[in-house]
């Protein structure tokens, strides 16, 4: 056996999971080599110590204390309560954000309304108002009658009852 052969095998033996015995002819060859080669003997010593120490950290499988299950259950109950609470928290947050969005929308509409009122001449504004109030027939009359669209004229027209027919 050469040093290389020995080292190759050692890599296999290194794992504590592998069985501890080296059997038969291999054992004799290994013993012969080790007695003549201090370097390999030292390597095996290191490997042996590693195996012993790693194996020492093994803990036999056991049943946990019965109280563990009660402990886990209690923690899970707490978690369910917490997630229920956070559901309502989330619902509240959602409702609050909906309210904010609605308010922003209203503000935007109010802004548009103010803008329209500032930019559009009085006559057109009244025409739009009439339209908005669905007083279509009145609006139609105002447009087609060719009357002068003075503010008073429009206001009085709108104050009047909407006509029943064209």
């Amino acid at each position: 056996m050469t040093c290389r052969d020995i080292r190759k095998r050692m890599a296999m033996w290194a794992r504590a999971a592998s069985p501890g015995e080296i059997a038969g002819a291999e054992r004799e060859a290994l013993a012969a080599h080790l007695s003549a080669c201090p370097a390999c003997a030292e390597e095996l010593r290191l490997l042996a110590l590693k195996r012993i120490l790693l194996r020492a950290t093994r803990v036999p499988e056991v049943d946990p204390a019965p109280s563990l299950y009660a402990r886990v259950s209690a923690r899970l109950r707490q978690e369910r309560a917490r997630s229920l609470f956070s559901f309502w928290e989330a619902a509240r947050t959602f409702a609050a954000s909906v309210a904010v969005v609605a308010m922003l929308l209203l503000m935007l509409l109010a802004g548009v309304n103010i803008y329209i009122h500032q930019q559009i001449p009085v006559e057109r504004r009244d025409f739009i108002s009439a339209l908005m109030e669905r007083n279509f027939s009145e609006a139609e009359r105002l447009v087609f009658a060719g009357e002068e669209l003075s503010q008073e004229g429009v206001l009085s027209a709108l104050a009047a009852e909407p006509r029943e027919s064209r």
Partner: protein
Amino acid sequence: MAEKRNSANELVPDDEELVERSLAGDAEAFEVLVRRYGRAIYNVAGRFFRQPEMREDITQETFLKAYQALHTYRRGASFERWLMKIAVNACYDALRRMQRRREFSLADLAEDEQTWLEEALAKPAFELFEQQQQSENAVALAEKLLASLSPEDRLVMLLYERDGLSTAEIGELMGWSRSKVKIRLFRARRALDKRLRRILQGAQSASASKAKADEPESRQER
């Protein structure tokens, strides 16, 4: 859905059904899973931690995480394996949270541990390799040695070298690629061997100086 019968010939719902019931809000269904896998998880924690309190903490954390992530469990996959992944990662997180010892030093060993080490190393290498008997001193020494390793090194050392898991299995548990596992394994071996070599050298020079003091003429063993 498939149901098994237990020894008392009662219908036992399988894991998948219990998961579905839990997701639908049945608290009792998840409790059944806790009782079914509690022991296994507790012993997974035992691969990394000796103290029962630590193992209980890990078990509780594992089931809590599993409960919170239950919607990510894929139907048809093994629930047990899914749970094991969570457990091993909880152990890994716990290892990372632990205060790491700065370095391993022979001076940190108790007298009994030192004696055990000297006696072990006085044996021929072959005999030491085949030694089966366990010792409390070896346990204490091993704990100190492992505590000086990084969490990654410690994890792969224990799972691969001690427990005999394959690199593929470790990769699956940890969500690491196989090459990542191999690199970590290489580094872990190097780190552990470095410490072990120091122990061997230290113990040899100690016994050599002792031998010199006892018998100045004695031939020094290599």
